[in-house]
Every structure is written in structure tokens, then in C-alpha cells.
């Protein structure tokens, strides 16, 4: 008899809370009946039955947290049935999650972590929200605008609770009009306000890219230094999971190309918080690239509201002497897990988290390469004209005499992101490719 499985209610959901049962054992259910409520990290969602029959067993009681996607939660029909592996809602099986589990970054950036700093565990989502809220409390000229940031509490719940705290004057729901509201925010920035513009995802920023580049990034120069614009453009960037080509692009290289913009792409919650605060305080336009898959990941974050990570400083996430692996954003998962695998074979990789794409912290990269003499650069974006191609060129220019092998690159494949689970997995870089690249530059 059909068992009901914990459904995945968003492309990146891995688990959720079974909040409430709306049917009791013995109740008849018909397809379309709402039988339960589930809380994800984003929203409370209703589960509908797709089969007909009596609800014969509830396998997961109401109130249970961390119920993994695809766990059987109830049975419809004869109670003696063994829960069949039938899926109520197709499970996305996100390819990116197939990567080995994240090694939690216990060591936040040393330069800003005086010994004795108290830490707290926070998700990236909470870190970004905390940073924005703290800065809004500190400076009344900071405001947040975007689609669904207010009443809906954020498409990805980043701004949850902020409308209640700051009110509709400062948490502004916009129409679906990226070109228009990006331009409007830049105008407000010219007038001296400090807008934070949320793109529901960066894919949609292409409609606004004219204002990001032509209006926000270039006006200071064209005005001979008179008309700066302190503004943050932020939102999830890169591949989420199974959302295909138009919703899965990484814009690091696009925005990293532009003089006048600063571009950051944090991996840890500590960096997300510290860089967001730096971005809001920065008098220049900053593109802040987040990642939906990272939103729910937890990291240790220094307590308090004075935690700032300077823009333009990379972080050595792991020290090593045989090969330098440079990455940023979600690809740090691959870099770190590759380093683990290499360590098991006696290869010590130094892993650098760039954190900032523009300005690039080349000195940190070059110093490391001078020590290891080998370099692998890892990113999720398309390979041509990419952040890693820039890194390769810079390392060649500045550390040619130190290199014992050509710089290797691991990037997304040169294809629009496919939908099929297996193809998506193939299109994205993985840790084994990073391991192979490291071995190749080590000639082992």
C-alpha cells in the first residue's frame, strides 16, 4: 500500500519539520486533501495526498524536526503494507549535495579573530540577516528592497522578521521589475541613501545589469569623483539544484570584470556576515553573491555586532605545502573535500578561499604558490573568461619562475545547465576532478 514520503518542497530542501497532522489515523483521504503541514527552512507548506484510502498509520509524529526528505511519514491503505519506495513528490536529488559533507570551518579568518572571541553557531541565512539588521539599526539610511522581501518574508527567508522590525518604509516590496528597481535604487544611492537590493536570484539581475554597470559602477569615474553610489546588490547566485539553465548561472566572472564594482562571494557564515557588513558600509557598489545551497549550512560565527571581514582579503582555509587550491563560494566544499582526500594519500594541499572576486587578493595566492609551486583553481562558473582563467593568468604572470607545472583549472562544463539529475551532476565540478587536477600538477 502506498506510503507517504517526506516530500522535498524546494529544490534545495534536505530535511524539514513535520509541524502538524491534519488527518488522523482512520480518516479517509482523497487525492488533493491536505494531510499535513511541513516547515522547511523557507516556509510552511502543505502536503497533499495523491492516493485514495484510509490513513492507516502515522509513522512520524507531529512536531518531529529534521525529518529527512523521502522518509516514509504515513501509510494510506492497508496497514500491513510495507512502505514502498514510491515517491509522493519527485525528489530532486541535488547533484551538488552528493559532494562529501562539508568540513565545518572551525577557524574563521585569523586576522579578525582575536583570541577569546566568543563564537555562536549560525546558518549562512541567519548570518546575512543579522548583518543587514545590525547595519540597519546602526544607520537609518540603509534600506532593503526587492521582490517578496517584506510581507512574504523573503523568497529564501533571508529577510524574515525584518519587515516587523523596520517597517515598510525600509523593507520595500517591489514589483517584478528588476531593470526599474535597480535603477531606482542606484538613483537613491546617488542621493546618498544606502540601498540593499535583493535579486530573487542573480539570474534575474541580467535585466538590471545595465544599471549595475553603466549607472552604479561607472558614474563615479565619469563624474570625476563626485557622484559615488553606496549600494549592495545581493541574492543567491549559481546553481541551486535541478532548476536548469536559466536559473543556474554563476555571475562572479561577469561582475568581476567591471572596474568600479566590488564583488564578494563568501562561503562560510562568518564571512557572509562580516562581508555583508563591510559591503553595506562600503561607499562603492558591491555585488554580493550568495548561494541557495549554502543558506542552510551552519558555521561558527564570532558573536556581537562588530564582526567585519574586509573586502579584498582571501582566507587560508587550510594550510599545506604540496599544492595550492584556490576557490570561493560553494566550490570551497569541493576544494576542502579534495584536500581531505589528498591528505589521506599524504598530499598536503593549501586551500585558499578568495572570498572577494574584485578586488582579488593576489598576494595571498601568489605567496602560497611560491611555497607550493603548484596551483589548482576551482569554480562552478563556465570555464571561458572565468575567475579561474584570470587566476591562471595572474599566477603565470607573477609566479612563473615558481611554478613546477602549468596552473590547472576545474570549472563548470561549457554547457547550459541541464535539468536531468545525472547531466546536472556532470555539468558541475566535483571533488574528484579537483583531486585529479592536484595530482596532475604534482605529476603523481
Amino acid at each position, binding site marked *: 500500500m502506498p506510503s507517504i514520503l517526506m516530500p522535498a518542497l524546494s529544490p534545495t530542501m534536505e530535511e524539514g519539520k513535520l509541524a502538524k497532522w491534519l488527518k488522523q489515523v482512520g480518516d479517509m483521504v482523497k487525492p488533493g486533501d491536505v494531510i499535513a503541514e511541513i516547515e522547511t527552512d523557507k516556509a510552511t507548506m502543505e502536503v497533499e495526498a495523491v492516493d485514495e484510502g484510509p490513513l492507516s498509520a502515522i509513522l512520524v509524529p507531529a512536531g518531529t524536526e529534521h525529518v529527512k526528505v523521502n522518509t516514509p511519514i504515513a501509510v494510506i491503505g492497508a496497514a500491513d503494507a510495507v512502505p514502498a519506495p514510491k515517491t509522493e513528490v519527485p525528489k530532486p536529488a541535488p547533484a551538488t549535495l552528493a559532494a562529501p559533507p562539508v568540513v565545518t570551518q572551525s577557524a574563521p579568518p585569523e586576522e579578525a579573530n582575536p583570541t577569546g572571541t566568543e563564537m555562536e553557531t549560525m546558518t549562512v541565512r541567519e548570518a546575512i540577516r543579522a548583518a543587514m539588521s545590525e547595519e540597519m539599526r546602526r544607520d537609518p539610511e540603509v*534600506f532593503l528592497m526587492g521582490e517578496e522581501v517584506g510581507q512574504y518574508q523573503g523568497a529564501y527567508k533571508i529577510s524574515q522578521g525584518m519587515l516587523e522590525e523596520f517597517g515598510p*518604509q525600509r523593507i520595500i516590496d*517591489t*514589483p517584478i*521589475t528588476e*531593470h*526599474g*528597481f*535597480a*535603477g*531606482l*535604487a*542606484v*538613483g*537613491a*544611492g*546617488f*542621493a*546618498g*541613501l544606502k540601498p540593499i537590493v535583493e535579486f530573487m536570484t542573480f539570474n534575474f539581475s541580467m535585466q538590471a545589469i*545595465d*544599471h549595475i554597470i*553603466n*549607472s552604479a559602477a561607472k*558614474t*563615479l*569615474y*565619469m*563624474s*570625476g*569623483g*563626485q*557622484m*559615488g553610489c*553606496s549600494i549592495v546588490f545581493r541574492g543567491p547566485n549559481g546553481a541551486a539544484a535541478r532548476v536548469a539553465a536559466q536559473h543556474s548561472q554563476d555571475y562572479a566572472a561577469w561582475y568581476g570584470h567591471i*572596474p*568600479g564594482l*566590488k564583488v564578494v562571494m563568501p562561503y562560510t557564515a562568518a564571512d557572509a556576515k562580516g562581508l555583508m557588513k*563591510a559591503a553595506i*558600509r*562600503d*561607499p*562603492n557598489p558591491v555585488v554580493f553573491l550568495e548561494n541557495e545551497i549554502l543558506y542552510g549550512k551552519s558555521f561558527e560565527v564570532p558573536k556581537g555586532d562588530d564582526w567585519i571581514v574586509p*573586502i579584498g582579503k582571501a582566507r587560508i582555509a587550510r594550510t599545506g605545502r604540496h599544492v595550492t587550491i584556490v576557490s570561493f563560494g560553494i566550490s570551497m566544499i569541493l576544494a576542502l573535500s579534495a584536500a581531505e582526500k589528498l591528505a589521506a594519500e599524504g598530499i598536503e594541499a593549501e586551500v585558499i578561499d578568495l572570498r572577494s572576486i574584485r578586488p582579488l587578493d593576489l598576494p595571498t595566492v601568489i605567496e602560497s604558490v611560491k611555497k607550493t609551486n603548484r596551483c589548482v583553481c576551482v569554480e562552478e562558473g563556465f570555464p571561458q573568461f572565468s575567475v579561474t582563467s584570470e587566476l591562471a593568468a595572474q599566477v603565470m604572470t607573477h609566479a612563473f619562475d615558481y611554478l613546477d607545472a602549468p596552473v590547472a583549472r576545474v570549472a563548470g562544463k561549457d554547457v547550459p545547465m541541464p535539468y536531468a539529475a545525472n547531466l546536472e551532476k556532470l555539468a558541475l565540478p566535483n571533488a574528484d576532478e579537483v583531486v585529479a587536477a592536484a595530482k596532475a600538477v604534482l605529476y603523481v
Partner: protein
Amino acid sequence: MAVKSAYIARKNGKSDKPAPSNSGFTAEEELHAYREMLLIRRFEEKAGQLYGMGFIGGFCHLYIGQEAVVVGMQMAQKQGDQVITSYRDHGHMLACGMDPKGVMAELTGRRGGLSKGKGGSMHMFSREKHFFGGHGIVGAQVPLGAGLAFANKYRGNDHVAVAYFGDGAANQGQVYETFNMASIWKLPVIFIIENNRYAMGTAATRSTAMAEQLGARGSAFGIPFEQIDGMDVRAVREAGERAVAHCRAGEGPYILEMMTYRYRGHSMSDPAKYRSKEEVQKMREEHDPIEQVKARILNGKMASEDELKRIDSEIRAIVTEAAEFAQNDPEPDASELYTDIYVNA
């Protein structure tokens, strides 16, 4: 929904016969308008000359013929109201009170230019004069201008932002994205459509649906609009005052479609083959904004021929001085290549 519209219907549907103004100017106002418009005219003629001599490069879009629009609007505004426009911006800068020397030196790409020679004709700014550019991307200034208005509303002051754009720009999607936001958020922004009938070589009638009524596009958003004789500085100021009062009262945006005409080509490199010499000649002879004021001044004996001549020569002197400065000022230092990319954090 009934649109609260102050639309002034034209009698015969021809765009060269919009409703006339009944509002009188005082002698002082007529002379002020004369002076301001003449400064723009003479400045632009000089810019055209310097372009021909190779002192000015790139694109250079002259405002000759349209002077009454910005001068009339400026007379309706108060200190601190913001202005933003397109690349056809020299007139707006002069009307905002920016230094003609600084404007001309920017045209020639010299270090004393208002953008240190790094912006050029299309990109100049002045925080002090509340002039926010000078934008080279057609239509970009419309949401930017609404953003200035947003800042006014956010800060709770009663300033108004004036965003100018052309008949061609009126076909940009971002204009309507902005109308929508300005309307729902009641932003104090005046949208001025400078309908000079052409976008480069394309007549509005060839590119634009309902081209005889561009302002009416605001009615879909509940934004009041008027079509105004933009060659008559009095009509412009009068409509500007209605628009400003509406915005200051917190009633939201307002659209003024100014029926105007540029005498010169789109830019200096435009041979203007898309319209007849007769059409241009007719506008100059029958509708010239400066000649209209001049005639009123003389007929009303507000000033004598001699007094006007004195104003003319004062203005010529200002323009000559600006041109000389712009030709002799040095180019920016090479070190300026790498400055002003970021504000130091």
C-alpha cells in the same frame, strides 16, 4: 478607474499647435528667461563651432531649439530640487547654474571640466547644483530620477526630482517600470518628456504608438499628464508649477509632455536627411522660444533694443571666456587614469 488628468486637449490634433499659455510673466521674469535661454543658445552654437574645429570629440548633442523647456521648468522649481536628464544635457547644466567654463572644458576633455575631463559631453554631474547627470543610456535616467525622488520621500523632505527624457526614450521598458513604481509609492517625481519629434533619424510617428499623445501613457498608471507647448517658456513654467505643487503635496508623480523641436541634427554627425529644411525653417520662424520672449519684451516695453543688446554681449562674453578656458586648459594628468574608480572605503 478615472484618471485624474489635467490633460489639455489640443484643438486640431497637430503637434505644432498645442494649447497656448495665458499666464503672463513679469518684466523681470521675461528678462530672466531671455537671458537664460540665450546663454544656452550661444553656448551651444559655440560648442558646435568648437566641435567643427576638432576641440570637441565624440558625440555632442546640442539643445538648440529646446531651451524653453529646461528654463521654464527651472523657474518652477526651488533650490534643492533635483534634475536628471539624458546626454542632451548642456542646457540643463547651464540652467541649473553650473559654471559654463566647467561645462565647456568638459566638452573639450580638459582637467578643469566638471568631470575632470573623464565624462565628456554626455556625463556631467554637480551635487552642489543638484544635477545628477548626464546619462548616455537612453531611458536610464528615468528610474534613476525616481530614485532621487524616493530619497526625498524616504528622508521626509519636500523636494521634487525632475527627470527629463526624449520621445525615443519613451519606448524604453524601464520608463514604464518606473511609472508603475512612482505611482504605487507616490514618489515626488516629474517626468518631462521632451518630445522633439525625432529619436535620431526616427520620427516619433514611425516608431511610437499613439505618438500624438506620449504623456497619455501615464494614464495606465494613474499618473496625471499634460501636453504643453514647450516652445513657450511661460506655458512650461505654468505647467511646471502645477506639477511641482502636485508632487510637493505628496500626491505622487506627474507627467509633462513638452512639444518641442531641435533645430540641429541629433548629434554633430547627423546630416538630418529625415526631415525637410522647410520644416526646420518653419519652427525657427514661427515658434522660436527666444524670439517669442524677445518680441514680448520689446512690445511690452520691458526693455529697449539697447538693453537686450547689452544682455547679448554679456552672454557672448561669458561664452567666449568659457571657450577660451576650454581650449587652453591642459588635458588631465595621466595619473587621473586610475583615480575615481573607487571611493576609498
